[in-house]
């Protein structure tokens, strides 16, 4: 195996060579319009009013004074809003989060629950009126306290079973020469895409039009039609440019509220979330408490693996962060137990956030592996080599491909791992202690049925219409390259149009499956179009259009363990006297299928790894126990890594084309963050000799954990 720069499977053509984003110029010049800034005639502005109590009922609402305020057009609330039907299962196979089904009853299940929409002629008038709206509540005692010992926790199956059990855990642990038993915690984390959620709804000739920022227009259109009992054909959702989503941009309160207001007022209505509102309304990653027990022989071979994860959800909707799933793929053991449990609290509903399950799960498991390596006196990479499974540890299925060790070998070579002294707390540079760490990464590789239309235009160009979603990833560009190669033409002859529910069903941008799913449909359409063109004497003025549908091909895929893999490396500096931790360099080597566009792929990996720095050192949403709401719910209070926190990050990949994908793609959207926080935490241990099992590793925690103990002197 070799790295991509000298890869063997890179076909001659557009795929595999670096291309800047096709819409890049529009984005950097401001020509690209985002959902909240597209002009409409007669546009009215809605502002959501959110509950300030964590549990209770709305007793009354003083709407009269608000209706008299300048510019106010209406106030929608549970007593006058259109009714919706939320008793259905959506496109993604789950019922809707009732948080989106706004204004249907007087119950308040968490702080930040939408209680009203104030609509006015201007955004400022709507905001002032919404903030002036007095709501009287019957408050009830709330419970927002998340801890590892909540008595009401229960297992929940989701896209994976809650519990897997193989072998007898306790006897294997008892027979193990080395045992690790530790609890790891990760905090509540928020997506915080740069672009806030924004939607404009209007009725146009009997059709509902929604101009939105989302990760799947068909997903949103389908749910809006079901919620509002509309004919699916009468709902059109468009989402041309999206400033980040990370799992948060599905069906949310603002779209439904905008549609309600547009229906009531019969004019276009826009609703945009503020950054603060996003903390309550856009979903988030649940905090987790994870207990891991590992039992191993002295040579590091695992006899027992027990990973139990607890996450939280709201009282109105079940969503589980399946952190314990990661071990079902990564490591085998004679006794192998994993369990994902859930507790319901008076908080908003969490949702998918970049690498759901794997991101927090890999922190705990890969940190525990590092502790095991230390205890066994084995190099952390060698420990993983010794525990590399032949087949899926739980499923018993073969891997479609698993190049994890190739990633480690290549990463170790480039990072200089061989020179590493494993002993902690030895390397000093001025006030800094230095250390290095590593961790493994994995994320499922999948594809979902999609449709595409491809037109050979009379002028010799090609137009692709596919309901893909480019949430900043470069998907539009990737699909352009894929279409160009499939058609054997230059990319500048291909125009890819995306983000329009009228283009028909397609996978959302999610699960690291978007580009692969769409590419499959585009490739299939191109194959058919080429056949049609070969048979046709000439092009009619309207061109020739074909449609593809990959449902059958994807349904025929054999059951296998299909995943991307990676190896993360980090070097950190810790000042034990003041608690500062700084990442000095990172390297990620990934085996993640064929890479379509090295430029944007590197962006994706580096972006994920950067988020790993944030996850390890910065991000933490703090819930105020007294009020049940957030403390510091803005980007001043909720820290993400700044440029100054992001050092030299290198991301590269090894050759790993998916044998069952027409293009060889696996998917790269999420794996960049997986294992990154563990590599950093492991490096912090290597620097200081102190294990940090709770994220983020803030200065106060470094000081409290006795970082000083290493140096003995406060000024060291």
């Amino acid at each position, binding site marked *: 195996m070799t790295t991509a720069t000298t890869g063997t499977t890179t076909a001659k053509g557009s795929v595999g060579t670096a291309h800047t984003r096709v819409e890049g110029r529009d984005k950097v010049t401001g020509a690209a319009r985002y959902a909240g800034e597209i002009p409409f005639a007669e546009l009215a502005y809605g502002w959501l009013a959110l509950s*300030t109590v964590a549990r209770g009922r709305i007793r009354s609402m003083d709407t009269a004074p608000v209706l008299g305020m*300048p510019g106010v057009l209406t106030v929608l609330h549970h007593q006058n809003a259109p009714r919706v039907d939320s008793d259905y299962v959506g496109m993604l196979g789950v019922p809707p989060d009732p948080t989106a089904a706004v204004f249907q009853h007087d119950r308040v299940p968490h*702080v930040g629950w939408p209680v009203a929409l104030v609509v006015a002629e201007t955004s*400022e008038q709507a*905001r*002032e009126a919404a*903030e002036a709206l007095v709501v009287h509540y019957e408050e009830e005692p709330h419970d927002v306290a998340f801890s590892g010992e909540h008595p009401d926790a229960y297992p929940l199956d989701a896209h994976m079973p809650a519990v897997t059990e193989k072998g007898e855990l306790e006897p294997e642990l008892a027979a193990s020469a080395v045992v690790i038993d530790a609890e790891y915690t990760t905090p509540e984390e928020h997506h915080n895409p740069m672009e806030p959620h924004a939607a404009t709804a209007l009725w146009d000739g009997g059709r509902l039009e929604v101009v939105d920022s989302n990760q799947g227009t068909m997903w949103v259109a389908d749910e809006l039609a079901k919620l509002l009992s509309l004919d699916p054909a009468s709902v059109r959702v468009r989402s041309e440019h999206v400033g980040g989503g990370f799992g948060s941009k599905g069906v949310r309160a603002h779209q439904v509220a905008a549609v309600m207001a547009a229906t009531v007022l019969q004019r276009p209505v826009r609703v945009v979330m503020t950054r*603060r509102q996003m903390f309550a309304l856009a979903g988030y990653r649940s905090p987790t408490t994870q207990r891991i027990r590992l039992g191993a022989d002295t040579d590091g071979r695992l006899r027992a693996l027990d990973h139990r994860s607890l996450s939280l959800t709201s009282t109105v909707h079940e969503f589980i962060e399946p952190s314990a799933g990661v071990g079902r793929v990564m490591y085998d053991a004679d006794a192998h137990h994993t369990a994902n449990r859930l507790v319901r609290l008076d908080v908003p509903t969490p949702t998918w956030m970049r690498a759901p399950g794997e991101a927090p799960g890999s922190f705990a498991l890969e940190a525990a592996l590092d502790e095991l390596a230390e205890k066994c006196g084995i190099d952390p990479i060698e420990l993983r080599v010794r525990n590399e499974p032949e087949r899926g540890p739980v499923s018993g299925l073969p891997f479609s491909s698993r190049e994890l060790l190739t990633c480690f070998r290549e990463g170790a070579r480039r990072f200089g791992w061989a020179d590493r002294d494993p002993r902690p707390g030895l390397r000093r540079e001025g*006030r800094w202690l230095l250390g290095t760490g590593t961790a493994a990464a994995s994320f499922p590789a999948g594809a979902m049925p999609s449709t595409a239309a491809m037109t050979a235009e009379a002028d010799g160009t090609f137009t692709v219409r596919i309901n893909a979603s480019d949430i900043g990833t470069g998907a539009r560009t990737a699909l352009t390259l894929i279409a160009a190669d499939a058609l054997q033409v230059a990319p500048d002859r291909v125009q890819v149009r995306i983000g329009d529910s009228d283009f028909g069903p397609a996978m959302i941008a999610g699960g690291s499956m978007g580009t692969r799913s769409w590419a499959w449909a585009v490739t299939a359409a191109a194959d058919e179009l080429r056949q049609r063109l070969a048979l046709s004497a000439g092009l009619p003025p309207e061109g020739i259009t074909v449609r593809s549908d990959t449902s059958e091909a994807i349904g025929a895929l054999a059951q296998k363990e299909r995943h991307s893999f990676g190896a993360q490396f980090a070097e950190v500096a810790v000042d034990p*006297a*003041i*608690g*500062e931790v*700084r990442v000095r360099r990172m390297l990620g080597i990934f085996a993640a299928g064929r890479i379509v566009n090295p430029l944007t792929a590197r962006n994706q990996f580096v972006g994920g790894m950067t988020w790993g720095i944030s996850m390890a*050192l*910065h991000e933490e949403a*703090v819930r*105020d*126990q*007294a*009020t049940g*709401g957030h*403390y*510091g*719910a*803005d980007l*001043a*209070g909720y*820290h993400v*890594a*700044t*440029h*100054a*926190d992001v050092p030299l990050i290198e991301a590269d990949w090894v050759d790993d084309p998916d044998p069952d994908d027409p293009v060889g793609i696996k998917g790269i959207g999420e794996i960049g963050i997986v294992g990154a926080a563990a590599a950093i935490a492991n490096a912090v241990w290597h620097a200081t000799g102190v294990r940090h099992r709770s994220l983020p590793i*803030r*200065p*106060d925690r470094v*000081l*409290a954990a006795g970082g*000083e103990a290493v140096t003995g*002197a*406060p*000024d060291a």
Partner: protein
Amino acid sequence: MKEFGYQRAFDVSGAVALLDADPDARVLGGGTNLVDLMKTGVERPARLVDVRELPLDKIELTDDGGLRIGATVTNSDLAVHPEVRRRYPALTQAVLAGASGQLRNMATVGGNLLQRTRCGYFADVTKPCNKRVPGSGCPAIEGEHHNHAILGASEHCVATHPSDMGVALTAFDAVVTYETADGPGELPLTEFYLPVGDTPHLETALPPGALITGVTLPPAPVTVLSRYRKVRERASYAFAIGSIAAALDVRDGVVRDVRLAFGAVASRPWRARAAERVLTGAPADAATFAAAADAELAAAEPLPHNAYKVTLMRNLVVAVLTELTEESTR
């Protein structure tokens, strides 16, 4: 947000007249804090008096060799001024440690001193806060307070002052000058901020309707060797969890003169006079520095989640004074 009046002033007397005429008027400098707070409803002024066109944007040497900094000098201009860099390097370092380049281009010296705490309870109008709504309570004491005050706080408020610049100015004995309808006045920065007590909503000793016109730094040879160090939870664009401005004059191994102030530990930039007393005339070594820090921090009253600040500040004092000692003997 609430509708408000806006007037731009072109001379100091005009600005003072506007402020005098309307007790609900607020001064708009760079707007980097006030406008944010207006958007979130924390500040609801009836009128803004924009002072950015006032002729207060100069930095001048005073007759006695000090420095007079106009109130509308931007942070960026202050940080790069050659006399500031030469005479008061910690002031330049403090300014550059704060905010971002864009914010520093807008923010003004006068506004910096009057900026409000970044306590998350103060900033959220749905929560109680004695500073915002007197008598409503201080949820930080029982709630989130890992970055709250350890010195000079009260049971009514444990918020910290967020300024970096103010810490250096406090260390260097800055004097705030102002103008009112009744004439000019001045306040040493160490007396500019009121004690918290049971009136955390009353923040400064400025008379009603006063306009800050500038800050004067007295000459002090000691400040030439000075340093500002800021500890924060990320490398940039975060408020301090502890900071220090220090100037040190060491001769023959003995501390001849010292200036020391702490940031992010109190409702105001904290002049560490107890530490200065221990240091002055004492041997310039780690033991003295630690004893000085302990003398200052003896008054600390940490809450359950901010006790680390005592260790942090102690270590910062020792680290920064050690560095300055090494520099002065080089």
